[in-house]
């Protein structure tokens, strides 16, 4: 990555001051690699993670482009082919449900919602968690103790029931799903970020910044948060599948997205109703959902192995 100019100044940079002979020695010499490049190379060597990333990329493309390309509408009911098995002949590649809606296009549209919820909710929890954790960790003392005690208290609550309650109380609006899940999911992030910040703030460069008179908020913004990136990235990839799962769970119970919108959870729920007569209505959304979760987990695992210096062996 380009952003890491500080990495290997010792190897490549001083070439200008050397005499031509020595400069020639250094020419084509070891090119410095930043920790990010190291991590990148480790990640590329992890075949499971790379495969998962490729599959995930294809999945995202399909979900974005698919509904435009496919001639069916997600709530168009094809009365000539209700509950049709997957068939190329009638154009319903994944079959249709009990009222003749095309499963393929519904699965892809549902994927849009599921992935969107995963992304946005994770973003919400990312913003809350990182700022909360960084502030608690950096200021320490009473601030830290009070803030983390609060996290402990919330942590002990039955999380899923709160989300369900929120959905019941405020109605099943899609925006609320984003916020509800994100707002309850930031606790882990806050804890991880706090721990990391505690060790970061004792680093010499933070000391140096403070000695130079940089203000606390600037230190947090410019020195602490960028160095949290690795940990946060790993955690984000592991949070996305969790969030998708929570949304599917809610939709499965009938508490998530509402018709005409759909998500993988809602589709699995519909499919489970008809699975005896039309197993394909369950199979396709379930497969898409599972493959997505599977891939995200592998990517997250790969990232952790690549970025966590502790497990380097």
């Amino acid at each position, binding site marked *: 990555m380009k952003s890491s100019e500080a990495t290997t100044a010792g190897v490549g940079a001083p070439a200008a001051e050397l005499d031509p002979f020595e400069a020639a020695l250094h020419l084509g010499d070891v090119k410095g690699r930043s920790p990010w490049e190291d991590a990148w190379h480790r990640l590329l060597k992890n075949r499971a993670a790379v495969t998962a990333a490729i599959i995930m990329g294809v999945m995202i493309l399909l979900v974005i482009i698919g509904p435009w390309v496919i001639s069916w509408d997600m709530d168009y009911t094809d009365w000539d082919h209700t509950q049709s098995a997957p068939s190329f002949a009638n154009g319903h590649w994944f079959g249709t449900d009990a009222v003749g809606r095309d499963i393929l296009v519904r699965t892809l549209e549902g994927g849009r919602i599921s992935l969107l919820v995963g992304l946005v909710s994770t973003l919400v929890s990312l913003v809350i968690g990182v700022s909360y954790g960084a502030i608690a960790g950096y200021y320490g003392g009473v601030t830290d103790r009070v803030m983390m005690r609060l996290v402990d*208290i919330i942590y*002990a609550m039955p999380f899923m*029931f*709160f989300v369900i*309650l929120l959905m019941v*109380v405020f109605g099943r609006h899609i925006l609320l799903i984003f916020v509800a899940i994100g707002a309850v999911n930031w606790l882990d992030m806050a804890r991880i970020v706090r721990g990391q910040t505690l060790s970061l703030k004792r680093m010499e460069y933070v000391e140096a910044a403070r000695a130079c008179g940089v203000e606390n908020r600037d230190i947090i913004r410019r020195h602490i948060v960028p160095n949290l990136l690795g940990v946060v990235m790993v955690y984000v990839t592991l949070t996305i599948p969790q969030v998708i799962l929570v949304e599917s*769970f809610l939709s499965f119970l009938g508490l998530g997205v509402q018709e005409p919108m759909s998500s993988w959870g809602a589709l699995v729920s519909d499919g489970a109703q008809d*699975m005896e007569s039309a197993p394909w209505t369950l199979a396709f959304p379930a497969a898409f959902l599972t493959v997505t979760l*599977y891939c995200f*987990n592998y990517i997250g695992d790969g990232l952790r192995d690549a970025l966590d210096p502790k497990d380097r062996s």
Partner: protein
Amino acid sequence: MTLDQSFVRHITRRLLSVLPTLLMLITVVFFLVRVAPGGPFDSEKALPPEIQANLEAKYHLDEPLLQQYFRYLGQILVLDFGPSFQYKDWTVNELIAQGFPVSLTIGALAMLLGFVLGVSIGVGAALRQNSAADFSTMGFAMLGVSIPNFVVAPLLILLFAVYGGWLPAGGWDWTWQSAVLPVVTLALPVIAYIARLMRGSMIEVLHSNFIRTARAKGLPERQVILRHALKPALLPVISYMGPATAALITGSVVVERIFSIPGLGSYFVQGALNRDYTLVMGVVLFYGVLIIALNFIVDLLYSILNPKIAYEEL
């Protein structure tokens, strides 16, 4: 392990921290449910206003919110969750007493299965690190972690009940047949997660010096694993038991619904959909206390198994 002062202080402090948690739980749940639009007596057919008023007076819904709140707190103190708003002639206590044994049975069996199978699979994989068996097992474990239980459950029903006809597709009659599918569904992610945890920690422990010493002494491998490696390797699994309980409880909501099991989770979802205030609050509180209590036990277990732990840091 001696019951030294710091240990006692640690326990006391943990117990004391439970109180604000509970209070916050009660408060949040109470006010959340009360600001909900729609009341428990909303129905298709509007009730005559006089009857509506009578009903609300009977359940104290006409009082100021704060008064209702303190009334509820007082009730909770004597462990009375009040009457259900939807199930006629039932108190929430009775509903919990009715549903919980079922949920507990399924949950406890799933936990047991998850722990035993998860630990054995994890140890097995660690001992054959990087073999084909290890890779395929861990691939399956990752699948187990990823695949949602509301996908597993219909698949199992389809396979073992609809096509196979060996087990009932749902219902609950306290026989082992009716328990198999729900328990397996619930246990699957726990097995998978514990197996992954156990493999990782076992590999780490096997590389440590005291294991090398044990081997150098000439102990048979079996004894090295069982006597020396297993206990420290179990620590991460033990600390996962708290979150695992919470996961099992939430999982049971879905599983009970799919298999139509009359457990606490079914009551909760039904209560949430019907705005049965007292039932919803009662169940959330009950689950909250359960999770807090189990976390406390797990914490104690952890500190007993790990003598290195410094209580002040917890």
